């Protein structure tokens, strides 16, 4: 008798759970009455880089909310957010899911390049426009001739060209050490940096790969200290970079310049590195002032997470699709053609976006930044 009783309790529990979710979802189910046009969104919402994905998702959400509120569209626009968990197979599944839904007219996707490399074929096959606000691997756009695929941020090569101009040519640091993480991103960074540095006459004294999640950089830094480089290049993401910078301070390496690219562009870096972040130079994505419309709107919308570096790009990517919707209407093919048009131009939060024949942005809104008093500020000296 007891076990039956137990089962009943669980059944009641399961039921109440289900009921709760039904109640949560009802407003979505019944809102279908108006015609809906969906814009897909895929980014890592779980897993190690979830923070960035969530920031981008909120920004995209904001753009969609604004479009709906503006009343310029006769239909309701909906953002369908999917998770790729930084995993290519999951990414492909998510892409297939969105492409199979005929209401989805275009998709914004992928922070992680491996995922992007895996899904471009899917979008090409279904003829759905895919705009990438944040992946960085050059091959995503340059490795294929799909006109569905475009990217509005600068790729890795452009970032490094931009940054090396300053730190090597203008500031004159020639002796470098490189630390990079062995993810696809960090690996690319290191290769591109090395190539460009050597073109401009710099010397790379050491290269050290670290796996993502490394916390102790002291062994590497101890070693680098003895090589006496003028500057350290970091190819990776904020967490590791901030720890590395902190430990550089501990080991008395404050006189060595710390330089990185967009992977470091998050206020989390300053938060974790604290006062030791001072003087770090990065190629940042974009410096939005506190008074810019996007930042104000984002704050007003009351999202609990920061928009992260990719937020404005995601916002602009949605902007481009909205523009296309206005011009050519909710049709997959027309949108692809609209974006692939050589004369296509878009003025958004990140400035002017212009795409070359690969669908790669030639402008991409890069800014040099330096850490001053716990904040990234645009380089001005």
């Amino acid at each position, binding site marked *: 008798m007891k076990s039956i009783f137990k089962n009943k309790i*669980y059944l009641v529990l399961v039921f109440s759970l289900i009921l709760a979710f*039904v109640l949560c979802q009802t407003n979505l189910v019944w809102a279908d009455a108006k015609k809906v046009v969906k814009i897909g969104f895929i980014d890592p919402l779980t897993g190690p880089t979830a923070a960035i994905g969530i920031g981008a998702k909120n920004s995209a959400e904001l753009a969609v909310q604004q479009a709906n509120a503006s009343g310029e569209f006769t239909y309701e626009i909906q953002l369908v957010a999917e998770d790729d968990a930084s995993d290519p197979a999951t990414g492909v599944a998510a892409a297939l899911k969105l492409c199979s839904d005929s209401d989805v007219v275009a998709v914004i996707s992928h922070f992680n390049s491996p995922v992007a490399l895996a899904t471009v074929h899917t979008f090409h096959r279904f003829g759905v426009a895919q705009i990438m606000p944040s992946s960085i691997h050059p091959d995503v756009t340059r490795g294929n001739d799909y006109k569905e695929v475009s990217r509005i941020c600068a790729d890795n090569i452009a970032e490094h060209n931009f940054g090396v101009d300053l730190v090597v040519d203008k500031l004159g640091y020639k002796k470098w050490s490189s630390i990079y993480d062995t993810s696809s991103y960090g690996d690319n960074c290191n290769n591109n940096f090395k190539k460009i540095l050597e073109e401009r006459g710099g010397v790379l004294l050491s290269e050290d790969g670290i796996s993502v999640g490394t916390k102790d950089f002291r062994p590497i830094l101890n070693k680098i200290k003895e090589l006496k480089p003028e500057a350290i290049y970091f190819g990776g993401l904020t967490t590791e970079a901030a720890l590395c910078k902190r430990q550089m301070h501990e080991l008395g390496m404050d006189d060595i310049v710390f330089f990185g690219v967009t992977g470091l562009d998050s206020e989390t870096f300053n938060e974790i590195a604290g006062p030791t972040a001072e003087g770090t130079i990065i190629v940042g994505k974009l410096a939005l002032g506190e008074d810019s419309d996007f930042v104000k709107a984002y704050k007003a919308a009351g999202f609990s997470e920061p928009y992260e570096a990719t937020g404005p790009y995601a916002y602009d990517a949605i902007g481009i699709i909205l523009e296309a919707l206005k011009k050519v209407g909710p049709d997959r093919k027309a949108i692809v053609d609209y974006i692939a048009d050589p004369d296509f131009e878009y003025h958004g939060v990140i400035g002017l976006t212009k795409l070359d024949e690969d669908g790669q942005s030639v402008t991409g809104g890069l800014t040099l930044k330096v850490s001053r008093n716990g904040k990234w500020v645009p380089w001005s000296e």
Partner: protein
Amino acid sequence: MDNPDTRSNYSQRLYKKIGYFLIIIVTEVIIFYMFINFLSLKGIDYKLFLFVLPIIAFFVLQRYQKIINFVKESHSQCNSFSIIFMILLLIFIPFLFKDNPYLLHICIMCGLYLITALGLNIQLGSTGMVNFAFAAFFGVGAYTSALLAVNFHFSFWLGILAAIIISALFGLLIGSLTLKSTGFYYALVTMAFQIIFHLLVNNLRFTGGSGGISNIPFPTIGKYSFSSSLNIFGINLPYQANYYYLVLAIALFSLYLAKRLYNSRTGLVWNAIREDEIAAKCQGISVNKGKLEASAIGAIFGGMAGAIYAHYISFISPESFTFHFSVVLICIVILGGLDNILGVAIGAVLLTVIPEKIRFFAEARMLFYGIIIIAVLIFKPQGLVPERIRKYNFLNFKKDSI
């Protein structure tokens, strides 16, 4: 000639047979219908009740053992009919999903996970080796066939053969290195291998590093490429249907193979090793040989699935073969039921479909994944389909032994 007695006996048996067939058809159609409904759920809507209701009905029915017994009896009496009918239903799936390749994709992934989990079950379930390196076996298969296809233009079919051979060798290698360790020590060593594998493919140049390998060619049969849409009786099926039928065929073959292995002497030897290595040794069983066999044969299943996966997604990178994937595979086997092929099949399907279906929780997805696993375990602390006591029918036993 027939006296009326035997004739009425005959007709009675006929009626019974028809009854069995009907029961089989009804139960399988219900299960199939539930599965289809569950797959095509979009968020939470009324369809969920079509899924939940039969489950509740099942719990209610448990109090009427007679009905359950009758259903069980009909399935075991007309075994081949029930299998054939299920296969027919499965063949029918692409037609249902012809406008929704995403659902077909989930079905393919179910198949691949099923094949892999069957391989792991041989080690984890039958032999009691807690292998945390199974994603590496999967990865070895995937990388072998992908590298051969991209660098040396091997066809898919040769590639899958190579994948089987290489992964079997890899299984033997790991098996021979771990012969001495048992229990959790074995678990740790395999864990170490898993991480070493992941870091190696991530850092080595020839595997494409962390960027992985892209543009893996599609399989072809003669001139027919798997990337073109399949046309049957004038109905256009999406290109995934090609893979679906390929995976279905291989999955069925793997199920058959696993069943044969389970019933064979080898399967019994594995069980003996799992229960008590020393006792097995005393019975003259070569424990080392049994363990190596389990390593190699399990690896073959994994490598085969990995090769298909590589060609299907047409892109692989180290991220797909992480420790996390190993853990998911272990969850499948334990949750489904150790050393129970039906259980593993159910576990594979559920744990592939559930994460996809709870996508609408977005960020909370993995949280619910965990909660669901624990909830299921509280309901069924031995796994969904607990291990069965071996039934001995000596005539059958002889027939099935390899």
